């Protein structure tokens, strides 16, 4: 959606600008015309003045599906919290913690970040490290019975959708 040839330079991130405007309105908790003006100016100024810091634009293929992904993630967070709460109240000696390696098929940096965050927020798993060549994610699990099944679960439920949305 190029409006004019130099849009890339003068208005580098239209969606980011709109996001900043909404963020500003949420922050001041008002939608008066003056605040909308300030928000619009900030929404233009910040992406414009910081564009050298972000040499690579994140590719986002389908914003609607990302929203769907986030909603499902929220549902998983709620469910997994009940599980973790039950595990915490149990005797710690009966837990079987484990470090597992998750072989990544994602390559995009931002997508890996989102995946690691998703893992940290869901069922008893925290991502604790990334190998220097970005091919493995080290995940700590609070209680695990079948490691292979968990890897498959993460791959099908989070990694595949992210691959389709962000890469």
């Amino acid at each position, binding site marked *: 959606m190029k409006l004019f040839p130099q849009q890339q330079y003068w208005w580098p991130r239209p969606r980011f600008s709109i996001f900043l405007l909404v963020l500003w309105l949420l922050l001041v*908790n008002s939608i008066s015309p003056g605040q909308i003006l300030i928000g619009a100016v900030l929404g233009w100024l910040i992406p414009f003045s910081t564009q050298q810091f972000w040499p690579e634009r994140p590719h986002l293929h389908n914003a609607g599906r990302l929203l769907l992904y986030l909603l499902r993630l929220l549902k998983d*967070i709620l469910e997994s919290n009940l599980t*973790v*709460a039950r595990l*915490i109240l149990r005797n*710690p000696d009966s837990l079987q*913690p484990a470090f597992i390696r998750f072989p990544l098929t994602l390559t995009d940096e931002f997508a890996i970040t989102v995946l690691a*965050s998703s893992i940290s927020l869901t069922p008893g798993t925290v*991502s604790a*490290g990334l190998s220097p060549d970005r091919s493995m994610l080290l995940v700590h699990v609070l209680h695990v019975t079948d490691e292979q099944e968990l890897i498959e679960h993460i791959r099908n439920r989070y990694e595949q959708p992210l691959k389709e949305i962000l890469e």
Partner: protein
Amino acid sequence: MEMPLWLDAIVAALILAGALVATIGSLGLARMPDFYMRLHGPTKASTLGVGATLVGSMLWFSTAQGSVSVQEILITVFLFATAPVSAHMMGRAALHRRVGCQEKTNGQPWDEMDRLSGRAAQSSSSGESQR
């Protein structure tokens, strides 16, 4: 503005559930035997608990004061976005410092710094006592 009873009940339920979940998270922080297991409680339970309390507070202010209050959404989203990041950073720092984990833990943490500096990776699944 008077609050309808059903909304009042929802707000009370959200705040109470949030407080309970956050307390369970902190309990996990206090009683789990090794650092990596302690990491689980605060990142998930405490974040969700505080998030639920904030949503309850948002509903309360929106009706009690008659004007929509949305700043809590900002705090909640911020908490949910940063909790996994700081958990990951702390996990990495613990691996780097070779903080031990329980002996029964399956699998071994690979040592990132060993691989970076080219030293031979050595097992670091030693007990807590070896620190």
